[in-house]
């Protein structure tokens, strides 16, 4: 028996969308055989066992990919994954792996994503997504041979679109006599969920910009802004990033010259939260990071607007004023209301976000200090967004790829190399919003990082011009990992380009 009105598709930013995969109307929540009703510890057991299953499945995937079938490493890995799946079925009565957004559910219990498991989670998720698999049900008589066939098929080169791949995969499993795996498509495909996600992302983004504008205006006027709204928008950004980050990251490509300070703060917040997620931070930590990121430039609201908007070169005094924004931010944050205690972490990040790893940069600390991890994350996000944006004193922005390479290769930038690496892992070698020239003479805009982990250089792109140079809008999505029948990639990036040169406004393709 279930509640009166099962939630429809998860359209709210509240829990339903985040924690539980949608359940069809009228569907009764399953009672797990062997589970003690109401026993909270059962969840913990499932999480533990589920995590173990994912680890061993990941290990088996790698073993199958690297070694011949008869290799003992493969046999051992298959035996382990079989054992863990049987154990779960033994205690739970059933075993269903379900993929929803960035989460994996085992029998409707969400597995916790953290730093020590994100690589295996993300690899499996990507494979399932690429194969069009939303859920896998495994029966009790599963054998190592079944796992071997399933994992081998899952890793086979992707030549079709996900929906076709699922059909193909199901047929191949059947042909191989594997009856212990039942595959199903994602529960929300093709029902406009992508559009809904985009709508949610747009709403979150615009609300965030509006709240940031209001906050900074209030600080500029010397008021004591209430940050209740800011908290809510950061919570929204965290929810969005945890569920479906692509849409929100896409919106960071929007460049509104007049709103730069506000959109920049929101973009840095989005990048930081997404990067934090990639680094394995939990929800509440992401919230802390998001708050700090959104506030990182609050000190600019105490710098005269005439200087912020000055297009020509800055005098030494003007530069000094600009460079004072990190510590002015600390003082500005003493003004905010609506917090149980002072926003310490945000203050530290505001102060440190222009300090380099070797403590050069600005401001120069007098007392001994170790730059905070959050400051390093925000510094990378800030540098990336600032350099790729058109601003008063930067009329020609750098391309995302240029910035990425500079951050990676130039140690004088003082970025933490591991965080830069993780950032590239997040955004792909060609970050979202990059205009690329393809070997087909088409132009494309990077839409999202490829979900297949080793395809970072082959993102999903939106083709925005045909080979004859006709610019199209909105253009079609293309997966650069797609190959033809001979296994040759259909499209390959030749180079990145400045969109101005082609009269293309990137943001238009994300709104």
């Amino acid at each position: 028996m279930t509640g009166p009105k099962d939630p429809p598709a998860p359209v709210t930013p509240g829990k339903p969308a985040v924690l539980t995969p949608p359940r069809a109307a009228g569907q009764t929540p399953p009672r797990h055989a062997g589970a003690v009703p109401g026993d909270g510890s059962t969840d913990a057991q499932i999480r533990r066992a589920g995590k173990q299953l994912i680890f061993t499945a990941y290990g088996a995937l790698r073993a199958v990919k690297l070694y011949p079938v008869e290799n003992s490493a493969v046999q051992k890995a298959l035996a382990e994954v079989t054992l863990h799946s049987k154990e779960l079925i033994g205690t739970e009565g059933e075993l269903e792996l379900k993929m929803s957004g960035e989460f994996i559910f085992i029998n409707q219990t969400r597995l916790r994503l953290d730093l020590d498991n994100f690589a295996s989670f993300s690899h499996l998720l990507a494979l399932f997504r690429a194969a069009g698999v939303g859920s896998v049900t495994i029966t009790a008589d599963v054998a190592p041979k079944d796992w071997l066939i399933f994992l081998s098929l899952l890793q086979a080169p992707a030549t079709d679109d996900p929906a076709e791949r699922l059909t193909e995969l199901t047929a191949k499993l059947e042909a191989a006599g594997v009856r212990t795996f039942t595959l199903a498509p994602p529960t929300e495909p093709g029902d406009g969920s992508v559009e809904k996600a985009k709508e949610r992302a747009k709403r979150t983004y615009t609300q965030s910009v509006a709240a940031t504008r209001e906050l900074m205006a209030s600080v500029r006027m010397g008021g004591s802004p209430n940050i209740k709204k800011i908290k809510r928008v950061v919570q929204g950004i965290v929810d969005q990033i945890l569920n479906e980050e692509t849409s929100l990251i896409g919106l960071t490509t929007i460049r509104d010259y007049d709103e730069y300070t506000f959109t920049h703060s929101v973009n840095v917040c989005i990048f930081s939260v997404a990067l934090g997620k990639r680094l394995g931070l939990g929800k509440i930590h992401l919230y802390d990071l998001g708050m700090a990121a959104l506030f990182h430039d609050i000190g600019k609201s105490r710098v005269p607007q005439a200087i912020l908007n000055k297009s020509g070169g800055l005098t030494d005094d003007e530069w000094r004023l600009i460079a004072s924004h990190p510590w002015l931010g600390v003082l500005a944050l003493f003004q905010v209301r609506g917090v149980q205690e002072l926003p310490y972490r945000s203050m530290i990040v505001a102060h440190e976000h222009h300090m380099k790893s070797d403590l050069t940069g600005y401001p120069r600390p007098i007392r001994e200090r170790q730059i905070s991890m959050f400051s390093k994350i925000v510094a990378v996000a800030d540098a990336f967004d600032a350099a790729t944006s058109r601003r008063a004193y930067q009329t020609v922005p750098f391309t995302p790829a240029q910035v990425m390479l500079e951050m990676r290769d130039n140690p004088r930038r003082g970025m933490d190399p591991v965080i830069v690496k993780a950032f590239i892992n997040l955004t792909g070698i060609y970050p979202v919003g990059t205009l690329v020239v393809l070997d087909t003479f088409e132009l494309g805009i990077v839409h999202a990082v490829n979900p297949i982990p080793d395809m970072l250089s082959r993102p999903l792109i939106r083709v925005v011009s045909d080979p004859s140079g006709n610019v199209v809008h909105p253009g079609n999505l293309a997966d650069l990992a797609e190959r033809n029948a001979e296994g040759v990639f259909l499209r390959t990036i030749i180079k990145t380009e400045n969109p101005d040169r082609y009269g293309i406004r990137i943001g238009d393709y994300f709104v």
Partner: protein
Amino acid sequence: MTSPPPIAREPTNAPEAQEPPFSPAPIEELLRSIGKAARAHQMYLPNNPVYRGAIDALRAAFKPIWEETDEVTLTIAEGEIRWYDTVVAGDAAAQKASDNLAWLFYKDGVREISFSKGFEEIEVVVLLDIIQRTRKGGATEDDLVAMLWEADLVYMKYKYVDLLQDGGGGELADGTIVKPAAPGDVERGARKAVEESRASSIVNMSEFDSTLYFLDEREIDYLQLEIKREYQQDLRVNLVAVLLDIFEAQPDPDLRAEIIEDLHSLMVHLLTAGHFRGVATLLRESQAALQRAPDVTPEQRKKLIELPETLSGPDALSQLLQALDETPSLPPNEELAELFDQLQPTALATVFQWLPRIQTERLRPILENAAGRLAGANTAELVRLVQVADRDVSSEAIRRAGALKAQAAVLALSRILFEPDVERRLLSVQALMEIGSPGALQLLEKAIEDSDRDVRVTAVRGLTLRMHRPALARLEAIVKGKAIRDADRTEKMAFFEGYGALCGDTGVNQLDAILNGKGFLGRREDAEIRACAAMALGRVSTPKAIQALRKASVEKDIVVRNAVSRALRGSAPGMP
């Protein structure tokens, strides 16, 4: 400008009323139980039986529901809560008060809540806590939705309308101005790029090696450590360092004034949060900044010096000590010591006032140490406190003056010797005795004639201990005098021993006469006096004194004979 639709709409009702699958009675009971438990949560501590009873009843109220379903979803309206179109709590006309559960949820935008099996175990208490915080929270504090989000409950879901946001915040558009390019230009540009790249092998294949961007074990370990460090760092102490760095680097007077104001406000925050290490750092580092910062104006100096003064003031320090004495979780000793190290001389009076009142065993020695340090370093303040009207403060100051052998306090102590309060005179004598300077001992000489017996005894013992020979004449007069004969045995003994310790052979005749001499009609002195004389001779311990003692060794009076024996034993070679 158009506004995007709100995040969640008011739940649209089903076209026709739905029949509940089972009786609403258990749901009604559950909501009543939540209301009762919320009140209990607000009024009682968790170990209170009433509270425990309410929580148990609430948990029990879930049981009949879980026998019917695994999840229950409730719709929140302005004054009522519905389940399957049946009102299960409140009514539409109900008051918009915070004790109305429906209104409490509704006013913050919550429109639907669902509980799943397992909620009653742990999360139910979290919800009660959130309800309480919402009820008590002011307009600027987090609302229910923000708190539910932070609580990250697994067994409770909710839907809400976002009342904080004004619609969608406006349209989203890229404001970049670009000049459209002709198709021919686009084609030429693309072809040129492709040809150039083919010609020059511009593409660096190493950029395409995705595995370069996967984090290896070492990097993951590094990140884990960094995350740990992020959450282990002392943000408050860090912020103190930041503010003082800014203070030192920025000479602008307005900015410095603002920073000083922020430091004052930060100190209050830190005290309120019980973060005493932060307070200690703030006070210590602010004084260091004062030394280092260039161009500090007298006003800035005054304000920075005021920081530790503020905490050392009677009001602030009393509050702090009271809070520490009452807290169930006293901070570590080192943290407290670090804080007390920053107290200023002006804190002495308050510390002295609180020392006798402190109930917490662990706090007392730390405060004692602080008092000792402060008093030792600030004798002038200590001397001032000796004379203040507050009896507790003055008495503690007298004790400290003695313990510190503070000669500067002698004059102040002398005044106390003329006060009518015996206890204070006694304290003063004890302090003078510990100080032991010539001036102090002179005062003790006078004190042996005090009207109070304890004061006299203490004074004479002090003089004896210090072997203060100038007091001999006075002691001899007393020993010869009649008044001592009326004193109790202890006093007699103190005076005779004092006399014995100071007189040497010159007093032996006098003592011998008292011990062995006979008066009119062969009458001897009182046995107690003779015993005291014997003890005094024992203190003299010269051959002549021993000879006098031996004369009395066959004494019949048991009191005298015992005293003689003891004196002889005590005066034997090698005896102290």
